[in-house]
């Protein structure tokens, strides 16, 4: 097999197709530690890759008319290999140009959208452009080698490229990134592209570009590694992993009984997915998980307290409930967590119950909405604490149909508690979500600010209403939650939402992502 052979050329088309999807799919993961993986970041990356590819196609078409297109093809492959292999090393300095360390979510605002677009442009446009040039050049070489028609040559190349894209898509998501990591994925893709291009350059006697390319590739293989965001002062890294969904790490701060561990996803903007302290029970001020335990104190009945947690993470809600339920009440719970990697880290570092316990059932690798149809029993409480991309409530978990399905899973008088990250009781996300929840339950919904935090807890009840914070039944007369409930009862800390004539969010029309952007923008305008 030589650079002249059609088999070799087909292999190049296949590899270019695979590399295109690898660059594109792993691109969002590469940017995630700084910008998250929101729809806006995906859109920016895909947009940049498409523009660069289209330009590459045009350039490749022009270059294919040269007397020896193999030389250009070799140069394009080597350049692409180098540009791809250096991506892990360039991600951090590039992101830091647009997004300095130490910003909070509301301070970041437009920096997330425009910074991710600018970063995508600088990082991914060059390799995507080079990848775009390959298909027309290969088609030209195939056509000349076999004296085929343009259609026949292009069809073969497109077939090989598309099959390569298919393999690249699945392999990147399920194999390369989770098992080899981002750096190795990009280095591997770069090495393959460069390796395929080298014979073309040698055959065309282009030794100088070949030598430069080999040196640049070798440098990348030796030096180019992704450097994640720094740990905060006092944080100690316990574990880190690339899962098929996100970058996850466990960090610890403090010592002894005051130790706290956080499971962080994609590490940006100080967000965390789960927290752990040595003792089960309520967490220090400011952690919204404590608000999940209030309904059991309002019900105050002995026996099993059956809870479904949608968005279990590493099991923080369970640990809080385990230590904060009233005496005589025992927790029986099912938790849904989409990311099996989070569950594994939770079991290793955050005391998440091991597999096999009948009173702590974990279902992972399944979306919380789909899971609603798979749980057979009725629950005393449903907890929704599911965020994607650090800051977005998934649309399928923010529709009137979802809340109606969740209400149907509750025993009579059962409770639903939703954690909402918002900026005050007038926040547009909170407003839409609470009214949608009220429509799903056909009952008024109560929103209460969690003290010392930006979180708000939404309470709804099947066949009734939660207690009013200004009435006597709100504050438990004893137990660890009396202070929390007392603080939540202050004037201005809560708001009721009536059942609306039409739910703002449903499965058909769900502008939750636009509302989330509006929420952050409003908060930014409100801040300096």
């Amino acid at each position: 097999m030589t650079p002249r052979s059609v088999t070799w050329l087909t292999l190049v088309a296949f590899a270019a197709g695979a590399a295109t999807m690898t660059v594109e799919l792993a691109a969002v993961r590469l940017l995630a530690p700084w910008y998250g993986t929101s729809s806006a970041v995906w859109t920016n990356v895909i947009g940049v890759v498409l523009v660069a590819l289209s330009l590459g196609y045009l350039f490749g078409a022009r270059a294919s008319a040269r007397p020896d297109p193999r030389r250009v093809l070799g140069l394009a492959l080597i350049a692409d290999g180098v540009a791809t292999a250096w991506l892990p090393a360039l991600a951090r300095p590039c992101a830091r140009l647009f997004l300095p360390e130490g910003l909070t979510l509301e301070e970041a605002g437009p920096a997330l959208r425009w910074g991710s677009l600018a970063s995508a442009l600088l990082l991914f446009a060059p390799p995507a452009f080079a990848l775009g040039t390959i298909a027309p050049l290969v088609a030209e070489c195939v056509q000349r080698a076999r004296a085929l028609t343009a259609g026949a040559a292009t069809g073969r190349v497109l077939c090989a490229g598309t099959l390569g894209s298919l393999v690249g898509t699945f392999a990147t998501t399920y194999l390369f990134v989770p098992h080899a990591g981002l750096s190795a994925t990009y280095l591997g893709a770069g090495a393959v592209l460069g390796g395929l291009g080298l014979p073309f350059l040698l055959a065309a006697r282009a030794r100088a570009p070949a030598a430069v390319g080999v040196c640049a590739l070798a440098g990348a293989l030796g030096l180019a590694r992704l450097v994640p965001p720094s740990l905060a002062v006092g944080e100690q890294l316990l574990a880190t992993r690339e899962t098929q969904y996100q970058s996850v790490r466990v960090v610890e701060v403090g010592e002894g009984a005051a130790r706290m561990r956080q499971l962080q996803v994609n590490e940006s903007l100080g967000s965390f997915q789960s927290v752990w302290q040595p003792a089960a029970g309520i967490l220090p001020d400011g952690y919204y998980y404590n608000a999940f335990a209030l309904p059991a104190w309002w019900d105050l009945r002995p026996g099993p307290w059956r809870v479904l947690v949608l968005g279990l993470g590493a099991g923080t809600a369970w640990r809080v409930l385990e230590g904060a339920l009233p005496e005589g009440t025992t927790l029986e719970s099912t938790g849904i967590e989409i990311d099996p990697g989070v569950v594994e880290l939770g079991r290793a570092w955050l005391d998440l119950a091991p597999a096999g316990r009948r009173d702590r059932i974990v279902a992972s690798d399944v979306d919380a909405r789909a899971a609603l149809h798979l749980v057979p029993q009725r629950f005393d409480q449903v907890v929704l604490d599911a965020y994607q991309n650090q800051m977005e409530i998934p649309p399928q978990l923010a529709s009137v149909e979802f809340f109606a399905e969740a209400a149907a899973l509750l025993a009579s008088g059962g409770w639903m508690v939703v954690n909402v990250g918002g900026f005050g009781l007038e926040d547009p996300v909170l407003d839409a979500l609470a009214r949608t929840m009220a429509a799903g339950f056909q009952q008024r919904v109560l929103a209460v600010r969690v003290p010392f935090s930006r979180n708000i807890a939404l309470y709804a009840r099947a066949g009734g209403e939660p207690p009013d914070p200004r009435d006597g039944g709100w504050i438990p007369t004893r137990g660890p939650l009396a202070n929390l409930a007392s603080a939540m009862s202050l004037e201005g800390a809560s708001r009721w939402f009536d059942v609306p004539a039409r739910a703002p969010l449903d499965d058909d029309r769900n502008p939750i992502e636009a509302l989330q952007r509006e929420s952050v923008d409003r908060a930014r305008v409100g801040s300096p």
Partner: protein
Amino acid sequence: MIQLVTAMLACGPWLCPSSDRDGAIALAREGRFAEALSAAEADRDPARRAEGLLYVRHHAGDLDGALRVAQEARRSGVGSAWLEEREAFIALTVRDAARTRTALSALDARADRGGTDIARAAEGYRTELAAIERTLAARDRGNSLAYAVVGGGALLLLAIFAGLALTGDRGRPSP
């Protein structure tokens, strides 16, 4: 040192003679926040009322509410060193640079009239404020750079596109 000064300033109100404010503080420390708020509101002295309200709101975790109390007190001219110090402290906690600056200016004015502890507290807060402002300035520079890169990149891509698409093919056609 900053923590020490902060603690000294934070315990200010209950060093004064007994009042509704002191009762409010005692109730808030027991976690009886609604009663504490009512007690604070009952204080007839505007400065003490504001101090009591701020203390209760702050200890109940209503940081925005506590800031509102301090702001209203300052605007209506019933501020005290303790209120201004707390306002600066809470504004820093919620990273509200503008409010921190305003509260520190008020504290500076008091420090000019004497008060080493106040000056020390203000100095520590000013360092933290400077760090926040540096971060925000870096963000603004990053935003400007992002706009420039996106705008420049779009123009460059458009120019390349026009150059490739509109100038026609050159060279000989493939065999």
